[in-house]
């Protein structure tokens, strides 16, 4: 019984080891119950939420100096993630007219607390200036990743529909050009 053997070994090793073990188990249990990860007590629940069937799918199209940027052939996952996933957050902020997503979440989740009056909380959020400056950063980082600094970029949110792998574009909304 591997787990039992390990626990016995840790328990008999030293008081510090016992504290570490109890802390790890307690924090892991609490964070799992709360469903809120606290690094470095990781929760491995990715893709465990149910995905409902969808008729439409969205992605971001980036056009740099008139040419379509193909993220699958021009960048590795970490760069693609940094660009396109942060763009998703920017778009959510855009819908909140430059407001921070976490502030909006906390004001809805715990409405009795005046979150905007808590200086320490507001200090950790994204400002409107940062929201406004994001497109410039996006262009700069895109240039770094592709190796060519673009003069002009346009970013669109594309909606496609279809099934069995065959998709047609039904909408394309420009998010910004710079």
């Amino acid at each position, binding site marked *: *019984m*591997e*787990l039992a053997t*390990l626990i016995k*070994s*840790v328990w008999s*090793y030293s008081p510090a080891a016992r504290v570490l073990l109890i802390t790890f188990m307690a924090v892991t249990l609490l964070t799992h119950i709360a469903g*809120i*990860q*606290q*690094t*470095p007590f*990781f*929760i*491995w*629940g990715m*893709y*465990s*939420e*149910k*995905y*409902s*069937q*969808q008729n439409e*799918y969205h*992605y971001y199209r980036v056009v740099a100096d008139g040419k379509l940027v193909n*993220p*699958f052939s021009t*960048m*590795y*996952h*970490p*760069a693609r*993630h*940094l660009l396109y*996933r*942060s*763009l*998703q*957050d*920017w778009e959510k*902020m855009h819908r909140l007219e430059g407001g921070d*997503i*976490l502030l909006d979440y906390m004001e809805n989740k715990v409405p009795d607390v005046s979150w905007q009056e808590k200086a*320490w909380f507001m*200090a*950790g959020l*994204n400002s409107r200036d940062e929201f406004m400056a994001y497109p410039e*950063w996006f262009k*700069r*980082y895109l240039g*770094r*990743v592709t190796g060519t600094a673009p003069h002009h970029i346009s970013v669109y949110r*594309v909606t496609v529909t279809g*099934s*069995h*792998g*065959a*998709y047609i*574009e039904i909408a394309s909304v420009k998010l910004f050009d710079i």
Partner: protein
Amino acid sequence: MMAYSTTDTQLMIRRTVLLAVAVSLIYRFIAVSYPHQMEEPLLTSPGLDLFYWFWILTGMAELMTATVYGYIHMAALWILLIIAWFRPFQGIWFGLIALFFLTFMVNYNLYSGHHTHCAWGIFLATLALAATRPVAFGISWSALRLYACYLYGSAFLWKLFRGSLWHSEQARTVLEVNLAHYMHLHPDTLLTQVYEFLLVYSIVLFLLYCLAMAIECVFLAGFFTRRWDGILFFVPILLHSGTYFMADVMFFEMLVLNLAFIPARYWASAAKKIDQLNTLLHAKANHTSG
């Protein structure tokens, strides 16, 4: 446990993990994701994770991405790797590598809009090597093995308790959400044709999804016996290859945890073969110079 604690076995394990760290760091450099390469990103997403809040509120996030400290941090990480290679039985270097790697990845995750988990295997493996005394190392390396079992096993249990395990649309929707962009951009590639086949004959996709769940579930056996460690070493390779193709997620760095499933006798045998090779090479070098 103590079988892992012999000098030769420990040395093999330590240097193999260091090589894995080096591969991860080289990959992330090529992928333009070092702090100084990120071009001073702006939007952070700490979520409700206190470590990320600590990172922002102490000013470390800005220090790392907007000042020369970003260069210093990564240079220090590489220097620590080199020191640890030549001083493999000094645990402090591995502890520092774990800390520097953790903060490097927290910084990346903070600006990327999502707290990715793909590199945490590297952090955990180096942290486990901070223990150097034979008994402590034996416990630590076994704990890493059990952590890997917990990682994959809890992934299975989360899906079980949240109901996605039984959800017939799960595999199909995950594939389409993640890969509609690829398929729309590349309608004629072989890969898109494979995806189309899987979406048309979705029973095949569902069976692959069940296989992935079975792989995760099998890790629960690792809490009770080491008899299945041979299987547990190989199946994450299948799992992460599958999720790479079916969900566009890159988790290869997690494969460092597979090292914890290799029995001690294989490490000892590899150490012996490397010793023999070294002896042979030295003998040839002496013969040539003589």
